[in-house]
């Protein structure tokens, strides 16, 4: 017997099956109120060849979400990126307009993109963002791996406490935590005062508004995103594999390189993605902690939108950044697919 949820009435429609199920169906029929005439839209959506039922309905919800909150804004930004700046409301030229009530005129302006390539500032900002994000990701990995390893190897009771400590900073707003770093890093801040108080330095070291401060900010903020996926892969790792490696002649360090590291690769990749991607477009950290000399694309975009009010150029920056971030993800998924196929071929 198959039971389907009727999405409008919320009740279950029971299709009768031979045997005992038939009586159940009859009962349901007897108890149910007389059927209401169904609306035409209902028939299109839930009956007929394009019917949205059961599984289809469940899948449709996330797609609808993505359509509304991701694809639509993306289309708007994409549209603006092909317009030209002009003074007015909105501050850009229309893409599609009627001329003389006869012609449909579509104007695709590439000036925004051209500008990106011509002005070296944008290219530099992209490269700077990639460099800073990549370096910060490596730093997060170097810091996060031993931490995740330690947590995964600790006893179950301390493990939960340690995991709680990792996610504890999330209870405070991200913005406030980055602000707090200003207090620590500034010239007469906590760190400089402590170092001077201990007699290690005589005059404050310029830390705030440097690239160093940006690294501190990014590594601090995104470290949990590295630790958590690493922890989940390391925690699943079978301890007897390490014992087997040692039994077959590996010293502990080599056993780690040969067994633990390759088996934690999915966690490393996931953690790096989770740190790298948001770091590239990071705006708050370079704005609050970084100096004028450090160019990151998120900040450039913000300036373009809110200071220059050049929406088309800002949109072009956004689209370019999106492409820059989507390409590595697509590449990674390709790699995964190839790996899976390799594994499948091995089984033949």
């Amino acid at each position, binding site marked *: 017997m198959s039971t389907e949820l009727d999405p409008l009435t919320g009740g279950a429609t029971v299709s009768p099956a031979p045997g005992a199920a038939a009586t159940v169906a009859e009962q349901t029929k007897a108890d149910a109120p007389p059927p209401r005439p169904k609306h035409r839209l209902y028939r299109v959506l839930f009956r007929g060849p394009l019917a949205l039922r059961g599984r289809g309905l469940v899948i449709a919800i996330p797609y609808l979400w993505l359509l509304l909150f991701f694809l639509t804004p993306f289309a708007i930004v994409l549209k603006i990126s092909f317009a030209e700046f002009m003074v007015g409301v909105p501050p850009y030229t229309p893409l599609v307009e009627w001329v003389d009530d006869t012609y449909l005129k579509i104007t695709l302006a590439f000036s925004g993109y051209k500008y990106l390539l011509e002005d070296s500032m944008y290219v530099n900002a992209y490269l700077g963002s990639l460099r800073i994000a990549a370096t910060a990701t490596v730093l997060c990995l170097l810091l996060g791996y031993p931490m995740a390893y330690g947590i995964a190897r600790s006893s179950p009771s301390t493990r939960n406490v340690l995991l709680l400590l990792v996610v504890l900073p999330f209870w405070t707003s991200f913005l406030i935590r980055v602000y707090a770093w200003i207090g620590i890093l500034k010239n007469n801040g906590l760190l400089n005062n402590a170092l001077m108080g201990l007699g290690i330095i005589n005059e404050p070291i310029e830390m705030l508004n440097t690239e160093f401060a940006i690294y501190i900010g990014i590594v601090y903020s995104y470290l949990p995103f590295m630790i958590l996926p690493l922890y989940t892969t390391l925690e699943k790792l079978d301890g007897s594999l390490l*014992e087997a490696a040692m039994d077959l002649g590996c010293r502990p360090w080599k056993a780690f390189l040969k067994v633990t590291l390759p088996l934690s690769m999915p966690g490393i990749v996931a953690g790096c993605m989770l740190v790298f991607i948001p770091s590239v477009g990071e705006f708050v950290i370079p704005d609050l902690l970084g100096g004028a000399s450090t160019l990151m694309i998120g900040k450039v975009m913000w300036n373009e939108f809110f200071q220059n009010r050049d929406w088309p150029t800002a949109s072009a920056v956004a689209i370019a950044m999106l492409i820059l971030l989507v390409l590595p993800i697509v590449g990674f998924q390709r790699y995964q697919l190839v790996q899976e196929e390799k594994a499948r071929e*091995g089984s033949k």
Partner: protein
Amino acid sequence: MSQFARNLQDQVARAEKGGSIPTDTPRSIIQIQNVTRKFGDFVAVNDVSLTIYEGELFSLLGGSGCGKTTLLRMLAGFETPSSGRILIDGQDMTHIPPFERPVNMMFQSYALFPHMTVEQNVAFGLKQDGMPSAEVKKRVAEMLDIVELSALGKRKPHQLSGGQRQRVALVRALAKRPKVLLLDEPLGALDKKLRERTQLELVNIQESLGVTFVVVTHDQEEAMTMSCRVAIMNQGRILQVDTPHAMYEYPNTRFVAEFFGSVNMFEGILVEDEADHVVIDCPELSRPIYVSHGVSGREGGTAYAAIRPEKVALSKEEPADTSRNCSTGVVQDIVYLGGESTYLVKLDSGRVVRVSLQNAYRAAEPEITWDDRVWISWQPSNVVVVSS
């Protein structure tokens, strides 16, 4: 059991007794000397001493938590004894790390590296030793040939069946030609039919390679089928070390008798204690038990008499001598097991005794059936008196 194993058993028996026939005395490969391992207050292994000889298939048998796996892990180097010494091939290995020991282990979970192919798994230990790659290749092919897995060398472990994985784990551990192979429940994850076949395969491989095997198992049938000698452990101690035959026929304690095969255990009072026989008076039996060998007991003390089910005779007729070693009862249940049947006879005292009879004839109507009144009897030589 093969002739090879039988000869080795004889040699070991001579060596254990201290007899010296210089030409074929087996060489001891593992010596465990007064080893104790504590985890906090819990004593997992309690003052164990044991000698294992070269070429033996030795089983450590016991229930869960008896300390057999801890003992094996101490041999592998994953645990360090709290006190005592472990010698492997004459060298003190008590504090040597696992990667420097001349032993290899086959893990209960097999512990195959999931990111490597079968070949890479088998080659792993060889590469650690810095063996030239041409030689590694040859050895891997050789090892996979032994277990007939040559065709599956490029597969990953998750693409193999349980039995295939078990065999890969075996040859991976054997590839380095260790002096001793430690096997932790090697057949535990296989189904019954496959397990029985693999037991003999394992023995064949062991004998053809001449490697000493130390097997941890909880399955007494498995230990009986495969081993030259068996050690039975309970609560961290070794109770008895013997050949399967001696273990079954001459258990030295009540625990061993009951753990190794099934047994009818009678508790009684030692009423007569002579050099060539003893008599035990058991309230559950209508006649006293007469045993045709002396024991080191105390007259008037408690004694335990163990009689195996297949050594009890079952008959509707009264036995010739009804003064001793017999009792009457009613057949309460019959368990048909194919090759044999187990009769549960309820004695007049209420005690239930197990009796095994061979089903030697196919079409024969069972002579004795439910609710029949029967006599059970046994030979004086078939009773073993054990300590508690």
